[in-house]
């Protein structure tokens, strides 16, 4: 499964440089958007796109997963 953040919109009275880090494999924990040179109060919004590629030899059945977005 891959992740693309798309356009990142910044809001707030402060400032920060947001960088997107599109990922091609979401196994484990990955950074998808980072902020640098941040000051004051700011926020960022984006609408990510997840792309799931089912391998040709995949076994039939139901698959489940959890996607967690963390901001700290």
């Amino acid at each position, binding site marked *: 499964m891959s992740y693309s953040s798309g356009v990142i919109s910044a809001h707030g009275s402060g400032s920060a440089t947001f960088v997107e880090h599109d990922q091609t494999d979401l196994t*484990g*924990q990955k950074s998808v958007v980072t902020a640098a040179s941040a000051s004051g109060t700011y926020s960022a919004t984006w*609408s*990510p*796109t*997840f*792309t*799931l590629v089912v391998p040709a030899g995949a076994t039939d059945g*139901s*698959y*489940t*997963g*959890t*996607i*967690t*977005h*963390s*901001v*700290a």
Partner: protein
Amino acid sequence: MPISAEVGSLGIRIAQIPSAVQSNPKSGIYIVSHLSPSTSVSQRIEVTNSSASPMNVSIYPGAATNSGENFVALPDGVTNELTSWTRISPASGVIPAHGHIDAIVTIDTPALVTPGEQFGVIWASVSSAPGLNGIMNVNRVGIRMYDSVGTIMQTKSASSLVKPPWISTHELELQWILIAALTAVLLRIILRKARKWRKKRRKAAKARARRQN
């Protein structure tokens, strides 16, 4: 495959700064504390819901690392010493639409601790039910925790343990007992010497009187 995150806007912030760390510029953004052995530190936080629907929120501590000023929150389920000392009340709740709930974060430091720095995150997390696509969406926001632990009393190794406060108190008492005992011995010696000197003077005076007679 676009996945919409219909959980609204979840926020978390410091609601009360302990007086001990008020001068620290980070204390309004993060949980910053110096933890001494056998002490308890509490701080109020606020979890907000700016969406139009109530939110079921879980609040819990998670482990983190901070290597070279690069703060990294570790995956869910990973713990460290700081997370084992941290409790949050309430640990879950329903935040009304456009509302907030307060929670108290308490760090209970045990008597024996490894001196050093500990890092963590207080997470506020909301989860959606798994969709038809089989994917569950979890969104969480967190307050970083930067905590220095203990007063290093033995510096033989990084893993040396800090003595609990009662040991240093007893050591202080023992010092005073020793000083008092030594003073008493010195006073006895001085008094004995003084008595001997007075005896000698009396004898010499008597001898002088006898010679004069």
